[in-house]
């Protein structure tokens, strides 16, 4: 078995951590991340901070305009702006 079979770099661990916030990390990636989390303090700190951010955003229930909604708003406003200038 290769030594680096289960080893991932800190950057890769952060990448998997980001993906898992959106439920897009595979099972295998999550296993590799879990192993890294047992010994890497940097990954652990990043993971904690990242999860906290996800919790906060979910708790705040923030919303924003969809692209088509924003474009519609922009078009309406620009028409008025043109008349105004």
């Amino acid at each position, binding site marked *: 078995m290769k030594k680096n079979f289960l080893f991932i770099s800190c950057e890769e661990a952060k990448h998997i951590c*980001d993906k898992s916030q959106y439920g897009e990390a595979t099972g295998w990636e999550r296993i590799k991340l879990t192993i890294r989390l047992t010994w890497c303090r940097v990954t652990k700190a990043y993971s904690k901070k*990242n999860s906290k951010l996800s919790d906060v955003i979910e708790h705040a*229930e*923030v919303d924003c305009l969809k692209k088509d*909604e924003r474009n519609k*708003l*922009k078009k309406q406003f620009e028409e008025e702006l043109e008349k105004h200038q």
Partner: protein
Amino acid sequence: MANHQLNPNNWIDLYSDYLFNYTISRVNDRAMAQDLVSETFLAGLKSMNNFKGEASERTWLVSILKRKIIDYYRKINSNKGKAEVRMTYNNDSESEGDWLEERVADPFDKTAEDKLENTELGNAIYDCLSKLPEKQAEVFKMKTILGYDTETICNELDITASNLWVIIHRARTALADCMEENWF
């Protein structure tokens, strides 16, 4: 001291999401929230001469929006009877006592304090989002707030998946740092 200036050319890009989030948490109707935000920008445009420069552009627009929201509630409550609280309980003896259960507080129901905290939290998130580069903020909002899948965002913005994750990583790191400084 009057040192703030208005630049309506940037209003939509800079404030539309903030104002929309502010509105939707108060009117709970997506279409109505969009209308109110649109009306706010138009009213801002018409009353630009009244801007004294004492408040920031965003604060000034929010003050207009607040009046629009109050007007909206006045309007929907103006028809007689709409603001009345109606309670109808059964006279049927078999269901006697059912009203007690109906009146018991729902533990999942949000209290006013919860809503207030959420609104403040939402404002703090938007304050931090406004500090991000435009592209980072856009990708983050699409992915995290609107919940679009990776492929849709990549197609819409013409970026690769690995590019998307780099942007998301930078945005999340900056946001977490900013929130840690201002909220956590």
